[in-house]
């Protein structure tokens, strides 16, 4: 019953605090079949699970599924202490979240390193988001240090936290409450080896958050996955309208303009983000949506031989850009540089435009259907 044991670790701190040695044993019961636990590290204060620094096919499949939103909210491991290599009481302690993808991205960078990994209970959420919510926080760090008897496992009093955990953790308060000194490591786990080799010093480059093409692309599946329910509702609405004789989508050909607008907002804008002029995400989406609408108009409604069919042409200009703009605006949450104040301002300006334009488009569509012009 992995679920039961997991909840024992994650929610009921009382059941773990009293008997710290059972924390790891619970994990062994839970995860022994998963392949990422390779044995035990023996310490005077009890055994600790040793984990692999290589990701196996199941780990990679798990990450892929989480990227698509499958089992994403339950992709977690038991909090507690783990070891990589042959850690001793002098080995560094690296702190991570109990979202499996966070944990995996850390351990895969630790080949050839002897270290401890202290996994916090972040309710299965990654480091940065958990820090923003406070579950990757001062209280949990202090609690977890005590829960795993860290002062009996290591002789030093240092913790290396991912820098992106800093919004939730006050280093000076952790020191006051636990005696452990927090050192903020690099943003990316791939820089950890260099960071440790340099005597726990991060270069400015290691401190800076990047948002490269590959970083942006891996975030796009979840943007599409979020659309499953709205899409189901839209398809149901189209079917009902068709049954009622209101036929504005009859074929794949009619669906193309909308599919393109969605793809622009969810995939193209994230992919081309730094190269699209302007700053507001909604603007970037609206701009590409407008180009798409003009293209659709040219292909679908503008017959060179005849005159422009202005009704459908105007409809696409009104409806397609706001779809792309809205979806692009939602990518602010996945981006690494938008501030709350900025997004609020962007929404104040763009939500009325999006709603107004789409509303006008829908009114136009119905007017044309019923008034037959």
């Amino acid at each position, binding site marked *: 019953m992995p679920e039961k044991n997991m909840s024992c670790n994650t929610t009921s701190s009382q059941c773990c605090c009293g008997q710290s040695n059972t924390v790891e044993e619970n994990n062994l019961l839970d995860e022994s079949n998963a392949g990422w636990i390779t044995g035990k590290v023996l310490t005077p204060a009890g055994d600790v699970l040793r984990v692999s620094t290589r990701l196996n096919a199941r780990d990679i499949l798990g990450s892929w599924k989480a990227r698509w939103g499958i089992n994403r909210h339950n992709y977690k491991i038991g909090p507690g202490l783990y070891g990589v290599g042959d850690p001793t009481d002098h080995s560094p302690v690296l702190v991570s979240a109990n979202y499996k993808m966070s944990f995996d991205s850390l351990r895969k960078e630790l080949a050839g390193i002897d270290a401890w990994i202290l996994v916090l209970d972040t309710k299965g959420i990654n480091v940065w988001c958990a820090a923003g919510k406070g579950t990757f926080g001062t209280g949990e760090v202090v609690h977890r240090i005590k829960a795993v008897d860290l002062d009996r496992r290591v002789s030093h009093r240092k913790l290396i936290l991912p820098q992106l955990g*800093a919004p939730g953790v006050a280093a000076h308060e952790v020191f006051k409450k636990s005696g452990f000194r927090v050192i903020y490591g690099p943003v990316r786990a791939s820089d950890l080896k260099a960071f440790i080799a340099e005597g726990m010093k991060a270069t400015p480059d290691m401190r*800076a958050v990047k948002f490269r093409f590959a970083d942006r692309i891996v975030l796009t599946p979840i943007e599409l996955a979020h659309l499953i329910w709205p899409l189901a509702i839209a398809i149901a609405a189209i079917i009902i309208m068709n049954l009622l004789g209101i036929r504005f989508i009859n074929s794949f050909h009619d669906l193309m303009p909308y599919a393109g607008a969605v793809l622009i907002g969810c995939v193209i804008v994230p992919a081309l983000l730094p190269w699209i002029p302007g700053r507001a995400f909604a603007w970037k989406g609206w701009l590409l949506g407008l180009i798409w609408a003009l293209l659709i108009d040219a292909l679908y409604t503008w017959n060179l031989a005849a005159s422009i069919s202005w009704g459908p042409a105007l409809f696409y200009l009104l409806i397609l850009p706001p779809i792309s703009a809205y979806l692009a605006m939602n990518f602010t949450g996945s981006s690494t540089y938008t501030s709350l104040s900025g*997004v609020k301002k962007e929404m104040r300006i763009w939500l009325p435009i999006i709603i107004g334009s789409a509303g006008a488009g829908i009114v136009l569509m119905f007017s044309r259907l019923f008034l037959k012009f």
Partner: protein
Amino acid sequence: MKYRYLKDVVTLELDRHKCTGCGMCIEVCPHEVFTVESRKAAIVDKDSCMECGACARNCPASAISVRAGVGCASGIIRGRLNGSNECCCE
């Protein structure tokens, strides 16, 4: 390449009188917003701030204030609809 979001919207403030020059803000900032000038912190790139709040939380002298939060449109919309303070990262 450094990304640029909207100008002049960020709520970040630094009280240089309180600052002890420990450099913690420089260490935790993901966007190189701070530097050290004459042994105290200084804001050099305010528009790059994403209001994550790491600097304010880790300032032992409480010299930094910022209205921290997650810049996430769908989270803000959901928050307004539910009356909760939901974050999009879930």
